[in-house]
């Protein structure tokens, strides 16, 4: 079940600062509700997990995230992720592209497009809600990303220190990065509360329905 989500948002921070944050998967992971990076396989490939909580039961999706493309000059990145439910309940894969554009006021426009494919029980029962659920989760991602951006911009110590040996401005050298099994600065991942996401998505879907019904555009 493939779903395409596009989200564009603006931030005050300059393009290079935004790029630095976006091109470090640990930052990206930190913004995905319920996600954490557990291991760096190489400089572009990372193992991680996403926790989803439905009522009292928590399910872990374990998988891999890889930067397919990191073009610092054009400020474009492409991220591919794939995860499977550890209990064997299903899987999901995602291809996300992010493009940054400098704005005249010095800020940055972040344009992301994600293609998500879901397999399993979620694709059956949740099929009708996948668009809205993905939307809500993505909305949560962009909110957190913006928050992190603000934190790293200000005097507040950034939540994630740049990886050892990485030049903050120039692209990463080809030398392999030391494997870090845990990033101590990463806060423990709160499992994303599926029920809350579901109801948020439902609310959004209903709002949109009535909006359309009463003549508004989607």
């Amino acid at each position, binding site marked *: *079940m*493939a779903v395409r989500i596009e989200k564009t948002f603006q931030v005050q921070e300059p393009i290079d600062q935004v790029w630095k944050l976006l091109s470090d998967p640990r930052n990206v992971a930190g913004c995905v509700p319920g996600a954490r990076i557990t291991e760096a396989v190489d400089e572009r490939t990372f193992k991680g997990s996403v926790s989803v909580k439905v009522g009292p*039961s928590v399910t872990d999706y374990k998988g891999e995230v890889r930067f397919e493309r990191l073009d610092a000059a054009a400020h474009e990145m492409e991220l591919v992720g794939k995860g*499977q*439910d*550890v*209990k*064997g*309940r*299903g*899987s999901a894969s995602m291809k996300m592209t992010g493009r940054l554009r400098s704005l005249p006021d010095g800020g940055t426009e972040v344009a992301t497009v994600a293609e998500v*494919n*879901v*397999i*399993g*029980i979620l*694709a*059956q*029962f949740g*099929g009708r809600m996948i668009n809205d659920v993905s939307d809500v989760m993505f909305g949560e991602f962009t909110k957190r990303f913006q928050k992190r951006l603000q934190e790293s911009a200000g005097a507040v110590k950034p939540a994630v220190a740049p990886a050892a040996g990485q030049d903050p401005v120039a692209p990463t050298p080809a030398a392999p990065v030391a494997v870090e099994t845990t990033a101590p600065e990463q806060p423990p991942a709160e499992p994303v509360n599926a029920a809350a996401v579901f109801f948020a998505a439902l609310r959004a879907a209903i709002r949109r329905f009535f909006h359309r019904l009463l003549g508004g555009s989607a």
Partner: protein
Amino acid sequence: MIAKTSPEIGGLGHSVKRKEDLRLIQGKGNFVDDVRLAGMVYGQVVRSPFAHARIRSVNVENALALPGVLAVITGKDLEKAGLAWMPTLFHDRQMVLAVDKVLFQSQEVAFVVAEDRYTAADAAELVEVEYEELPVLVDPHRALDPDSPILREDREEKTNHIFHWEVGDREATDRTFQQAEVRAQVNAIFQRCHPAPLETCGCVADYNTGTGRLTLWLTSQAPHAHRTLFAIVGGIPENNIRVISPDIGGGFGNKVPIYPGYVCAVVASLKLGRPVKWIETRSENLQSTGFARDYHMTAEIAAGRDGRVKALRVKTLADHGAFNAAAQPSKFPAGLFSVCTGSYDFQKAFCEVDGVYTNKAPGGIAYRCSFRVTEAAYLIERAMDVLAQELKADPAELRLKNFIPPDRFPYQSPLGWSYDSGNYAAAMNRALEMAGYQELRKEQAAKRAKGELMGIGISSFTEIVGAGPAHTFDIAGIKMFDSCEIRVHPTGKAIARFGTKSQGQGHETAFGQIVAQELGIPVADITVEEGDTDTAPYGLGTYASRSTPTAGAAGAMAARKIRDKAKKIAAFLLEASEEDLEWEPGRFSVKGVPGKSKTIQEIAFAAYTNIPPGLEAGLEAVHYYDPPNLTFPFGTYICVVDIDKGTGETKVRRFIAVDDCGNIINPMIVDGQIHGGLTEGLGIAFMQLISYDESGNVQGGNFMDYLVPTAMETPHWETDKTCTPSPHHPFGAKGVGESPNVGSPAAFVNAVVDALAHLGVKHIDMPLTPWKVWQILKQKGVVD
């Protein structure tokens, strides 16, 4: 000639009220999930979320650690006992629990057993399976592409092609097409759907360590066949297995296959020495049990400009899912699909079917299909309408012109069937009369001029049921006879047991009426039993509308054997010779001597108290009936629809159903069957679809998405009958249960296409959802 019995006797033709009602209206039925045995535990299946994946590991530790969990069975466990795979009913095998890989979403991977239902559900959540996803194949048209994944690595031939089957005369048919004046073609998909009986499948497997016997309470339409298969596959002596098929909440073909859940429950019970209950949920039922149809068909008709059909050419791609578990007679990979020449006199015909594997649930034969006759009838009835459109002919007249005339029966079809009897024009004319056909056409023309969309659809189907003669028909090797055993008690009451198994068709009443007719014993005095393999004579079960043609016939024959013995006893009691006796239902009288007679009750009493010398005591008989041929019910259905131009919704304004099933046992029951089957046809035509997305996720796997008609969508059904008895059946009956599902989808679709024909529409595939129709209206520029 069938003697008319009194209402008290209640023989053939009486609308006797049903005996089975009393317990069912009180909620005192005994369905499998109602069975409660001491020490009973519950099983639940763990299922694959992936359509195609290798299994890397199955971890049952956490599940086993949960208090209340008694066992977790995996594929590897079954493999040790040689039970990881089991034979299907059609020359293939299927996994009971997956060991190396899974082949469809919802496939069975493990089985947990716990003290209660809820703990079993908890435990199922705790089983951890690691999968490695593989590329998925869901499009049957891609199954034979070189770059498509090979699904069945267990088979010697590494291909997704299961079978090629053909019948008829290819060369002669092709030649006729080359010379044809007119050719019409339709590509019609009969979509994958599911019978969805209201009661899901399930069992209670009770292995008693004290007696060494396994009692299997089973949702089974064929208890004896299941017993034999469990014995052979499970290695349990057949005399130590008792299958009890109690009250069944609808079958429709869903309860003919053997499912992994049954096997796991049996294994669990053998292992634990306790009764194990397994009842599947609706989602499991829709996603893993025997689906129906999924036939991708092309029909071509070659005809003369005068409208006379000459040849039929059919090519079909059959999507069987991951295993060929189609439950059909062993010599027929496409069931009885070759009845696709239908009610029409084709001189030449050729039909070929290719079956393929895909990453979907296994099955194919189900949902009142008569072994693929639903697909065949739909195809020919759609093709005839396409031909009518091509010729600008009236669809009713075109059919009347081409019907096999009554004097041509028994009729040899070009695809090898010998139709026993038929009078298609009589049914058609009656239906046209009931519908007021000419008036409807006038109304349609007037409405069309105003831009309103009204359609009239006709379907004149011929069915083929009653499988079947031993020379041609067997299921998994067991010949398709059926049986009846009757015992008359000293006080004149009787018990009759049959090898079939009703799931709502009313055998307890109707089959009693057969015996009542033959012996003149009041139907209220006759107990009918089915479903317990310890007591019922061996039969092949109830599906494909075979019960009345086979077991019903056996009932009549067994009763006649009893009547023969009764005549001897009567002759003895009346001190007359048998030649001087005449029979009327319920008594033998001496010809020409009024008052000198014996009732069947007196004769029964004498059979135990005053036995004629040389005769054995008792009054009973058993008969195993091998039908000489199949039977061919038929009919004409006419459907009138109005399409809403704003929403695309089709309203079925009227539906006329004229059926001919020969002599009828219980008209009330037959009408009930017609109503039910037409409602299923309505669901199929307008609402039902089980589909898979490109990742193999099933869509339509629960009742939110798989729609069943409610009382609101279902129109009023107008029914009538003609009667053309079967010449070879003991009381001229043919069977009727599936006719409405066989004949109606084409009537619905023909009506909708007819409503849009003036816009250039030739065919629309089912389901005709409002969305689908609306898109066509939009395309044609007629949306309101």
